[in-house]
């Protein structure tokens, strides 16, 4: 199924999304990789405020190439999500509702996602230009010393992602492959027609 979603990503929106759905996101998302996540957790420990409102937020795991003069952002595809697995559950408990990356997640993350009614989306790894074209504004809001790993506030329009893990814990990396293999025979038949 295809959804066009206006952010923020409230629980009312996430519960309607199913693993395998194609989603086009419009609105504000925030970038963070592992170095920034480590600092988020330190801020939480110190009782300080995070650099953006976490409730119903979506974090994009990305470290873009530098923008050329006149560009909003350089190439901006997803990085491997598992590096954020140790930090994600705590942010989900605080209201983080969506994460965009690529690759597998840990059981701890999936459990925290079910609790928080959050969604794990994948953007196409290696499609850096296609995705950058959907980013309309980009502003560094924290940890600028981290270079490509600084936290940025992005405004995106019709940003294409696929729902990998939904609020029930259903996982496209498991069911997608299974369903393809189960349908292999009928797909082969089609090929011979």
């Amino acid at each position, binding site marked *: 199924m295809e959804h066009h979603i206006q952010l923020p990503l409230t629980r009312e929106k996430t519960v309607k999304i199913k693993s395998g759905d194609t989603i086009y996101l419009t609105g504000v998302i925030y970038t963070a990789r592992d170095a920034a996540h480590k600092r988020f957790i330190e801020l939480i420990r110190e009782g300080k405020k995070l650099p953006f409102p976490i409730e119903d937020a979506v974090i994009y795991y990305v470290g873009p190439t530098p923008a050329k003069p006149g560009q909003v952002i350089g190439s901006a595809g997803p990085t491997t999500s598992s590096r954020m697995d140790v930090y994600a559950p705590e942010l989900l408990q605080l209201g983080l509702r969506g994460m965009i990356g690529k690759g597998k997640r840990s059981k701890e993350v999936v459990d925290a996602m079910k609790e928080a009614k959050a969604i794990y989306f994948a953007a196409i790894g290696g499609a850096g230009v296609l995705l950058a074209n959907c980013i309309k504004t980009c502003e560094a809001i924290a940890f600028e010393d981290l270079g*490509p790993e600084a936290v940025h506030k992005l405004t995106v329009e019709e940003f294409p992602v696929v729902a990998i893990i939904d609020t029930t814990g259903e996982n496209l990396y498991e069911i997608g492959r299974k369903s393809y293999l189960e349908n292999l025979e009928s797909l082969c038949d089609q090929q011979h027609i």
Partner: protein
Amino acid sequence: MRIIETQKISEIVSRLCIEANCRLPKDVKTCIEQSRSSEKWPIACDTLDKIIENYKLADSDNMPICQDTGVACVFLEIGEDLHVKGNIAAAVDEGVRMGYQEAFLRKSVVKDPLFDRKNTRDNTPAMLYTEYIPGDKIIITVAPKGFGSENMSGIKMLRPSDGVDGVINFVLETVEAAGSNPCPPIVIGVGLGGTFDKAALLAKKALLRPIGQAHSDARYAALEYKLLEKVNDLGIGPQGFGGLTTALSVAIEHMPTHIAGLPCAVNINCHVARHITEVI
């Protein structure tokens, strides 16, 4: 004896870094497009379409295909009758520095792997390999390597008795464990023989072979074909969403080894399989 200035090497390395990162080689494009035409699973078709659209956009807009513009792996094959005036390694690093700066490529190298993970800010040092060849030419190959796929690579010191089945099983295990992480469809380089370190280098070199060009030894060519079929029977598919196209190609490189061993290295590359060569 032919003499060449190091500055010339820097200029070429710089240009190749930019070219490799913004333009996917023709062999890779052809293979992705062929895979798209044999793919029947809807989400896999859609994913491959987006991958194709992306490299076309990168080409027309002069943009890096992927934001992970990699570590610069540089291979120099230097003619024995050629004298390079100056420090070759420094010249290669200067080329990487210039190219990554000029084309706004991402600098992704840290100074120390464990204690001081500070960005070197110019993407140096390059991962440089040099070897000597007959003649007075120098062959320069640049292959920027992203780490989403590099991290999913593996090496195993197989026993000689493990044989062909041992190799097949280890390749399949490595691809299975990698799953969606290395951005499938992937390119698989397999290095067999040598020592622990040589096998890894052979696997990396296998990634440089043009896709679609089978091994010159029919036995290895048949094994490459068999491995590709078996990998694509796994159903992981583009980006791990399910589908036929888990891998675009499997290439094997091999060399003599010890009587007691069968080193087997599997180096995984993503669909942004960048490699470019120039002869001077």
